[in-house]
């Protein structure tokens, strides 16, 4: 498979220079590198600039509701465990309206890779503060600066039980692509927080801002060490794989899903035995 095979009928209409292009390119090259079967790969997204991505990549796609893509993706995976399921959403999608689902997906350790398009702003609604906006961030809804502490997606994912937690940068397509490859290969819930410049509404967290600050950390399976590293976010911003652990996935613990995928099973069941208990 070549990258071009992943193109669709239409081309992205993100703002020129938007970090989302970098993420789309990284995802495409990751899928090519993994040589995935397009027919067995599903991308589920929420609502926002970022979440429009299934329109522009030729695999199965489901552009759902703001914040609800993780439950939808979980349903897809449970119904057909043989599919490779990738989830995508903005920081509002993943950590604002969808925060609860994020934490529960981490603790479930369902074998899905979720990519957070983290631009620290609400793009599609034209520039309000987001759960990952830094304190003091001035936006349309916070003219005097954000007065709430930001969520740290990496720390949150580690604390909540995700078994692969990484941070990438949309300005480093090659590095991001290899994180996505690793995330998809990992059996369990993989979280990839991607620093994504929004060139239209976020004039603080720019390419330049991130380029000066990012540096790479090495993967560890020591949770405390990983958590400690994840807390750094300021003058220097760590990227790479923070934490990786082998743990039984949700489906590993569901014997009823052994064998044929739920979606392919025959519809008819015999209830005779069930009724016997009620005689």
């Amino acid at each position: 498979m070549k990258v071009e095979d992943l193109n669709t009928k239409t081309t992205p209409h993100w703002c020129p220079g938007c970090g989302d292009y970098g993420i789309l390119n990284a995802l495409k090259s990751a899928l090519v590198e993994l040589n995935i079967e397009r027919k067995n790969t599903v991308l589920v997204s929420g609502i926002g600039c970022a979440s429009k991505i299934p329109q522009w990549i030729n695999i199965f796609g489901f552009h759902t509701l703001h914040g609800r893509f993780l439950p939808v993706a979980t349903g897809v995976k449970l119904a057909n465990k043989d599919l490779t399921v990738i989830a995508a959403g903005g920081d509002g999608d993943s950590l604002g309206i969808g925060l609860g689902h994020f934490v529960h997906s981490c603790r479930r350790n369902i074998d899905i890779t979720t990519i957070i398009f983290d631009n620290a702003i609400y793009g599609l609604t034209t520039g309000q503060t987001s759960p990952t906006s830094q304190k003091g961030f001035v936006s349309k809804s916070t003219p005097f600066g954000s007065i709430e502490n930001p969520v740290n997606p990496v720390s949150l994912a580690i604390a909540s039980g995700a078994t692969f937690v990484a941070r990438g940068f949309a300005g480093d397509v090659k590095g991001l692509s290899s994180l996505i490859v690793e995330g998809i290969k990992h059996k369990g819930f993989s979280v990839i927080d991607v620093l994504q410049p929004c060139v239209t509404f976020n004039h603080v967290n720019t390419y330049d801002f991130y380029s000066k600050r990012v540096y790479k950390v090495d993967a560890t399976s020591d949770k405390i060490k990983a958590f400690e590293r994840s807390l750094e976010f300021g003058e220097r911003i760590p990227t790479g794989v923070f934490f990786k652990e082998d743990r039984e996935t949700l489906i590993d613990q569901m014997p009823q899903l052994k064998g044929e995928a739920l979606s392919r099973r025959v519809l008819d069941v015999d209830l005779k035995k069930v009724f016997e208990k009620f005689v």
Partner: protein
Amino acid sequence: MRLVWRIGGKAGEGINNAGLIFAKTFMRAGFHVFMNTELPSLIRGGHNIATVRVDDKKIACPVNGVDILVALDQTTADSYREESKNIVFGEGVKAEGFFVPLQGVVDEVGGDSVMRNSVALGFSIGLAGLDFKFLKNVLEDDFKSKGETVLGANLKCAEKGFEIASKLKFHMVLEPLKSEGKESKRILISGNHAIAFGSLKGGCRFFSAYPMTPASPMMEYLAPLERDLGIVMKQVEDEIAAVNMAIGASYAGARSMAFTSGGGFSLMVEGLGLSGMTETPVVIAEVQRPGPSTGLPTRTGQEDFKFVLSASQGEFPRIVVAPGDCEELFEESTRLFNLVEKYQVPGILLSDKFLSESFVDCAPLETQIKNERFLIDKTAGVYKRYSLTETGVSPRAVPGSDLIFRSTSDEHDEEGYFDEDAENRVKMTEKRWGKVKFIKKDLKKPELVDNGGDLTLVGTGSTKNVIREAVEVLKGKVKVNHLHVLYLSPFQEEVVKILESAGTVVCVENNYTGQLASILRENGFEVDYHLLKFDGRPFTVDEVVERVLNLR
């Protein structure tokens, strides 16, 4: 022939279970039974009752009056004294009737005080004139898993109770009930069981829910079947996750359902629209309880008809079915799963606390409905997931096939790409709505129970059987017909046609505003009278009869 038996006591005293044992005993003896419960929203300390009707004919609704009341506490004795013919009570309760040393027997046997129920059951069976072997048989099955000691003690308690009744001077207070003597092969189930089983029958393999009374018992019924039947019953973080997970499972090709009550349905509304827009089938079971807000969590009502009909922003077709008894819940659940897949629309199955938590005896549930899959994995040319067709239904593929497509909750073109063009919008809206005409052809036709009367009672959902029985009772005095409206959406024109030639029409429903009547009005029919009840309790036969007679 009829017997109404009621047991009441504090919550946590096993009232529900005692009711089930009593009902099962008579069912096995060849009778028809019906049990409903009233309980407060408390786990312990409140006041619970279970009422069992025993009859020769099939019954599925409550009546006024009690033949034997077992009062385990003073509240029970005081609350139901007037409507009860005979009161059975033990130590510590002041009442007139049959004193039975419930606790004394338990102490003699050396059991736990909850076994007072078994003494009372034995006594009641004796009083009613049924052979003890039927009770023994049920107790053996019921307590088998609890071990020899517990079973033995319960049996002894029941036997003693039975003996006390046998020695009574005016021993038969009721006509002895003649059992058929042969063991029945019938099953004792609740409406929630019927929904769960009907859904399984209809091919549902994926269930997701967040606990909410009165829908949550379905979790408890389905979860133990996971491994035997190869299904998923997933408890999730909230109802938003429940409906969206079900939609995800359906997108991938598994038939799926989310179930809840009105409060949880409120959270599912956005997901309902997602199903509507992306034409991803999903079933939601909404077991109503009285609102607004938390309302009366453990009581009954039919207050959500209009809510489920119009829930969600925007416009899209949906199927809403409101069955009236276990047999209908089973069959319509099966039908709904096939219809939503065939037409790629959301389906809502309505029930309520009364219907879902009452138990009746049924023949092992069966249906003639055949499961059919409506999926494709090959096509000529470019695959268009949302192609415009005559029926509005586009051939649907699922992941895993070569027919790769994208779905979006935004308006889209035939291939699932964003499209805000005005002409496309019109076409797509008409396509989605175009299905309704065809869905209607696949619904069961409404039927008037025509007794040649010029008065017609119309209802939907759980009022079905109480109206039917009231109509029977009224027969001697007035001739009354009955129309049960099974589908609230799509609305069947035949309903209005029937009502137009039905004489005086009385709409019977468990709400304050007359929602069914309002739905009928929207479809061009004005009812003559409303018969409403909104106190959180179900109608009784006597109540309907009396209120119908007072209309005239």
